[in-house]
Structure formats: structure tokens, C-alpha cells
């Protein structure tokens, strides 16, 4: 939904890290995004090409690792992927869960020259 601001923050973070390492070019940016983060990779890609144009990240490849939603049962601690209509525990049927993965939106690493 807010890919433009995500892309801006992501680019400035990558440039800062590359700069700290005295790199002359960023060739790849490895990102991890969760299913629940609402980040649409195609949109990030589109904005990135636009706003990275005059930077050392121009032409860098963006890689997205998509994390599926995983939740943990508060009673028996089973970890499972909820289905669309039912988030209760498949083992003990408890309704109480906590989200353990799916919200991610971070930069794992960058590759530079």
C-alpha cells in the first residue's frame, strides 16, 4: 500500500550501508517481506528503478524473500499456517494464537562492488 515510502527508506538504507563500506556500486539488494506486511514487490521494483536512477544503486537487482504467515498456539505451542477461514489450532482447537512470522519487512543484505 505504501510502496513508495518503503522504497525510499530501503534505498537510503542501502546507500548508507554501501557508503560505510566505501563501495562504488550496489549490484543486489536482498529483502525479506512477510505476507502480512502488505508490501507488493512489483510496486517496490517499479519505484526503485525510478528513484535509484542517479545513485550507485542504479541497475541493482532486487530480491524478495516472501515469508508466509505462521502462528503459534497459546495453549499447546504448535506452530502452523492458518487457513483463510480458521485460525484456531489444528491440534488442540484453541482459538488463542500469536503471529510468529508474516510481518517481516527488512533488508537482509546488500551486494556491492
Amino acid at each position, binding site marked *: *500500500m*505504501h510502496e*513508495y*515510502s*518503503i522504497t525510499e*527508506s*530501503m534505498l*537510503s*538504507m*542501502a546507500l548508507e*550501508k*554501501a557508503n560505510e*563500506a566505501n*563501495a562504488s*556500486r550496489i*549490484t543486489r539488494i536482498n*529483502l525479506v517481506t512477510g505476507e*502480512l*506486511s*502488505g508490501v507488493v514487490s512489483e510496486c517496490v521494483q517499479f519505484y526503485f528503478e525510478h528513484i535509484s536512477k542517479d545513485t550507485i544503486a542504479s541497475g541493482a537487482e532486487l530480491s524478495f524473500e516472501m515469508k508466509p*504467515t505462521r502462528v503459534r498456539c*497459546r495453549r499447546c505451542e504448535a506452530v502452523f499456517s*492458518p487457513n*483463510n*477461514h480458521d*485460525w*484456531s489450532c489444528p491440534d488442540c482447537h484453541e*482459538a*488463542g*494464537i*500469536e*503471529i510468529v512470522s*508474516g*510481518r517481516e*519487512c*527488512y*533488508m*537482509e*543484505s*546488500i*551486494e*556491492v*562492488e
Partner: protein
Amino acid sequence: MTVKVITVGEDILGANEEKAKANKSRLDKHEVLTVNMMSSPGAGKTSLIMSTIHRMKEKVRIAVIEGDVASSVDADKVSEQGIPVVQINTAGGCHLDANMVESALNSLPLEDTDLLLIENVGNLICPNAFVLGEDRRVMISSLPEGDDKPLKYPAMFADTDVVLLNKIDLQPHLDFNTDAFKKMVTGLNSDVIIFPVSCKTGEGLEAWFSWLESAVKGKKDR
């Protein structure tokens, strides 16, 4: 040229979180209880803010930040009540961020404020990812939206402190299952407080007002 891998491992929204912390400590210094109000469009954020102002303004000094995609209709309503209000137009943007709130804080009389209500942009996805510096998160979900919203927007329901289930006056016209809704919400969030309310009839609002009043008091007594 050799390629080098630099491990980063940082949240993309880390800069927003830093800024939110700065907002928070500024608001803490002035003992302003700050509430981030989030919902889908039309669930009743402005109606709730207006009811809260009417009921509480004699006792509690209120200020408001209105996030809106383009118009100032919501801010105008608040302003008519003599309440300090700052309108943030996000120019099509789908959420408020800590930076926008920081500049809004510059135009508010923080030293004369006990309660700051922030109406976020109507949207159930991204406001959740952008902390603003708030003390409490309040979600408004309304009956016409259907009782399956918690399954569609689980992260939002998991992270909120309060759910105001609004428009309960419409129950006779809808097949909204309140028990199923509550069960899903508490399933996602064991600490949540749910207040079924109607801004139209006033039903249930007293419970919300007293919760808010004790939260304001709690901030002063820290």
C-alpha cells in the same frame, strides 16, 4: 571487481521507529496521553472523536491530529468545537508516519494538552506498520464491515490495545455475529479490550470514556 556481501539485517521502517520514539518522549515530557485511532474508511473515527470531545472537553484538555488523504472536512468539525487541531494531508498517501506527526506536534499547544487523539488515514493495512509515538492504539471496526475483518487484517487486530465495535445500532439490519467477532479478536490478541458502541445512540460509549479517562490519569500519575 569482486562482489562483497554486506549483512544488514535492519528493519526498513527503522527510521520511522526512531522518529516515533522521539515523538513519544516529547509527548511523555508534557504528559500527553496519545491515542492512534485506526480503521477502514467510514468506520466512525471522526464520529468517535466528536463524541469524545463533547463528553470530555470540560474535564480533559484535548487536541487532535487529523490525517486525511485530501480534504479538511474532519478537521473543520473538530475546530468548530474550539479544539486545537492540525490537519495532515497525506496527498494520496495511505498512512500517517512519525515524521508527519512530528511536524504536527510543532503546531499544537502540548503544554496545555492532556489527551491527543490522532485520526489515522482510513485503511486497515499500513497504519499498523507505522508507529507514530502513541501510548495506545485504538481500532474502530463497524458492523456493516462484516464480522470477518479480524481474519482479513490479523496484524492490525493483534497489535491494538482497544477495539471499538461501532454502529451496534444497526444490528437489527445485519447478520453480524458479535460473539464470533469477539472470539476472533481475542484469539489474535489476549490483552485487547473490546467496547461495543454506537456513536448514533450513545450506547456503550460511557465505558470507552471511562477507559480513556483512566488512561489520561495514568499518564499523569506515572
